[in-house]
């Protein structure tokens, strides 16, 4: 087990700053996810940690050891690639045993450990298969076994589930998490799939254009986005621009329609003063159909309904603003219907612009 720390880590490709002065700390045994759109630098960050790319600036520490200039093969990472990267000229056993042979582990022990790890990933008896005889899910498990068998200090996952079909992906997700927790290995996981990130991670770092936008638990980044990018990238919401008219425990924000709403800062660190531009964000499930308070109420007309089984998602508007509202699946509602909705001030988040 190891903690990982980066200080001002930077990687440049030509004119593109792929990773831009990233400083963060990943704790012992933590399952840490880098989440962001494609091209945001998350994979480059991971590859720099693995030693596959040279850091142009900044330092990387495993515990207190500076490994910035250490070659990849001495870092003791286990990496699972998006394309699995199984060696086609070796069978399953040889693929997994390769790292042990390099470590000069005795033959008998190699056999035992490969067997153990195959059991762990539920591929008992598959030793003699060649990679092309395996399904995508099985290849995935072999790649995982190969990374696990060397008892790595840290596990690195580069979008490992993106080539699997949806059902298998959800199954493997739970399994990865179970294995990582059982073995207690620090893991860094890269994905562009926010649902995957939310369901698997202890903490998530949302990245955009090489920079960290926010680090937090799944709940934190959903409930308390620090900025507009995180708010829009994670989940759905109703977004209305406005201007802060009074600050304090509760803010008052004047929307462009002239209406003033009560809101709270989106994140404890966000400071908003009167006169600041702000973006109001309300999650679909924060709306209720119980108006009557005289504030934070919106009169809207429904123009689209998505029935999702456990809920209904309404798209509605009041001519100036668009709303996404989650309602009970049993509610009888039709397109064109007018509704009055209420958003409690504590769920009406003001994001600093």
């Amino acid at each position, binding site marked *: 087990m190891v903690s990982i720390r980066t200080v001002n880590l930077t990687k440049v490709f030509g004119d593109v700053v792929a990773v831009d002065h990233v400083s963060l700390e990943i704790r012992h045994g933590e399952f840490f996810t880098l989440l962001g759109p494609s091209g945001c630098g998350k994979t480059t960050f991971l590859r720099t940690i*693995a*030693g*596959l790319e*040279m850091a*142009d600036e900044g330092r990387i520490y495993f515990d207190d050891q500076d490994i910035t*200039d250490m*070659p*990849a*093969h*001495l*870092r*003791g*990472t*286990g*990496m699972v*690639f998006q*394309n699995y*990267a199984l*060696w*086609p*000229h070796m069978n399953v056993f040889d693929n997994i045993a*390769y*790292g042990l042979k*390099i*470590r000069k582990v005795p033959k008998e022990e190699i056999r035992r450990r490969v067997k153990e790890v195959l059991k762990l990933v539920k591929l008992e008896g598959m030793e003699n298969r060649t990679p092309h005889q395996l399904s995508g899910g099985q290849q995935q498990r072999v*790649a995982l076994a*190969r*990374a696990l068998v*060397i008892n790595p200090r840290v596990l*690195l996952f580069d979008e490992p589930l993106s080539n699997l079909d949806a059902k298998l992906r959800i199954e493997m997700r739970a399994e990865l998490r179970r294995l990582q927790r059982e073995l207690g290995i620090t893991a860094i996981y890269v994905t562009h799939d926010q649902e995957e990130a939310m369901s698997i991670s202890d903490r998530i770092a949302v990245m955009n254009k090489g920079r960290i936008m926010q680090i937090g638990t799944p709940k934190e980044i959903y409930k308390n986005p620090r900025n507009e990018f995180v708010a829009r990238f994670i989940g759905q919401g109703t977004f209305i621009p406005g201007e802060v008219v009074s600050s304090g425990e509760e803010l008052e924000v004047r929307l462009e329609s002239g209406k003033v709403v009560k809101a709270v800062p989106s994140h404890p660190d966000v400071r908003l003063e009167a006169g600041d531009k702000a973006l109001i964000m309300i999650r679909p499930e924060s709306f209720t159909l119980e108006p009557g308070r005289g504030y934070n109420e919106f009169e809207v007309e429904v123009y689209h309904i998505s029935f999702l089984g456990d809920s209904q998602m309404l798209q509605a508007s009041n001519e100036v603003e668009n709303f996404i509202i989650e309602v009970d699946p049993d509610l009888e509602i039709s397109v064109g219907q007018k509704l009055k909705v209420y958003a409690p001030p504590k769920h009406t988040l003001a994001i600093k612009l």
Partner: protein
Amino acid sequence: MGQAAGLSKLLRKIRWEMDAFSWSQLIIVLASFTAFLIVPLGLVIVRSFYSSSGGFSLYWLQTILTDPFYFPLRLKLLNQFPFISLEGIRGSLYEVVKYQTASGEETIVLLTGWDMGVIPNSLVVATFTTLFSTVLGFTLAFIFAKYKFPGSEALRIVSLIPLLSTPFVGAIGLKKMIVADGVLNVLFYDMLHLLPFKIEITGLPAVILVQTLLFYPIVMLNSYTALISVDPTLEEQAINMGASGFRLFRTVTLPLATPGIEAGALLVFILSLEDLGTPIVFKGTTAEKVLTFQIFNRIFTPAGLISQEATTLAMILLVISGLVFVGVRRYVSLKKYAMLSKGGTWRPKRKKLSPAVTLLVYLFILGVLFFATLPHIGVTLLAFAKQWGPTLLPSSFTLDNFIAVLSDREASRCIMNSLVYSSIATLFMVVLGVSAAYLVSRKKSLPGIEALDLLVTIPIAVPGIAVATGLFLTYLGTPLSPTISGAPLLIASYTVRKIPFTVRSVFSGLEQTDKTLDEVAWTVGASKTRTFFSIVMPMILLNVLAGGMLSFIYSMSEVSTGIVVGDANHRDAPMTWKMYDMLFHGLAGGTFQPAALGFLLMTLQFIFIVGANLLLRKRATALIGV
């Protein structure tokens, strides 16, 4: 400050990418190429500008450019239309010779071509060879790529046969076909009476004919690959917008296939320019008056030194090919050319032809194939002929030529020499070629790596006779001198000249192997060196083998260095020198014994090329495309 920071960053980058193993790979490649290509070619250029006392001088360049033998062309201003005339061209396109035979008067039309002096001749021959090869090669490629007819795949493969032969071997066979009492005249004049007179093709036109028939497959292969690599939807889109027929061809199909055609044409131009084998076979005619032959003919001074005249000619040849290469490279690099040859990923759409058109297509293709296979048929027949007068086929067949060749002590020693030198050279090519291809493929981010790529690809475009001249200039009188042993320079020459085949095969293998397969080995603890041997090499083994086989067989058939070294040292001469020697200095057997040697070489070549392609199957469609 900024500069210093940039420099230290660069140094860090180099330290990061290059471990001891990579350094040793880089150093052996650079050292070998410096010693056996860069320094020799540099000396060719420098020595051309030496005066007899050792200082800088334009004497030889001036002497050559003002000598009517090399460059007779002069522009003369006239008083009347067209006001300018080009003087210095000698001879005429053809001569008519009449003579009496027992059956009456016979007319022979001798196609001799004009003689414009050595330097213009070389350029004219290369230009016409390129033109004809391109038209022929592209037409065939177009037919095979766009139309469907029974047997098209088989015919396409047969039309690549000329690739299985060096100009030297092919020219021996073709010569027997096109002389006055040769097979073509026997067939078309004596037997079928299709010709009103006999035609003999000789001199420069013969060189153009031989080269066209031997080089068109290069353009064909490249055009074919380019044509089937074009996304068919691009053409469909054009048809959808109303283009059809010739307009579609001119505005969409041709431009898309142009890079492939250009690459092939460039290669043909340079191969024609540097071809020494064909002019040698037609020795005694104007075919002698080309740069390669003149360099070869006067490379040694009577004192056994390298003549300055030949050196200067080699410099001129080198500069011309260099200019052509650089000029065309602006449009299409050899690298891009290599990529184009990787083969199409589309499922090409082929049109069916009406029966009448199919018949026409068959006639055209079979006609081309008839001529294209003449050299090979010729060599084969000659090799097995006991006697062959003015008849269609030899009057009797025998194995005596092979027995004679194999029992001739010098000939069998030369075969042995060739096998040994080529094997050793292949070992070097594999080590150097794999090293270079690995560095180029896996260390793309290192600045300057493109230069290494160019260095190991460019030998395709360097005239062999210039390399030979340079090697002699550099190593005559040193322990590597060919007068002591022919082996070192021949092996060195084979290695630097034929390495592109290995490099390209290995490189394409590496490019098809995902880099993450290396990376994952590093992450589980394998050093880069260990990864290279236990992961990378096993995955590209077939490409290494196939590339090595091609390099081996092209080494066996190397002409330029071989016959120059052979002339200097008969004992260590290779097989190609023996063929040359038997053609002109042989006591008995005439062309039969050299043809037998040529047939052996051709057979070996066939086995190796087919073998290499079988090894790779579909991994490298156009591997034999030079």
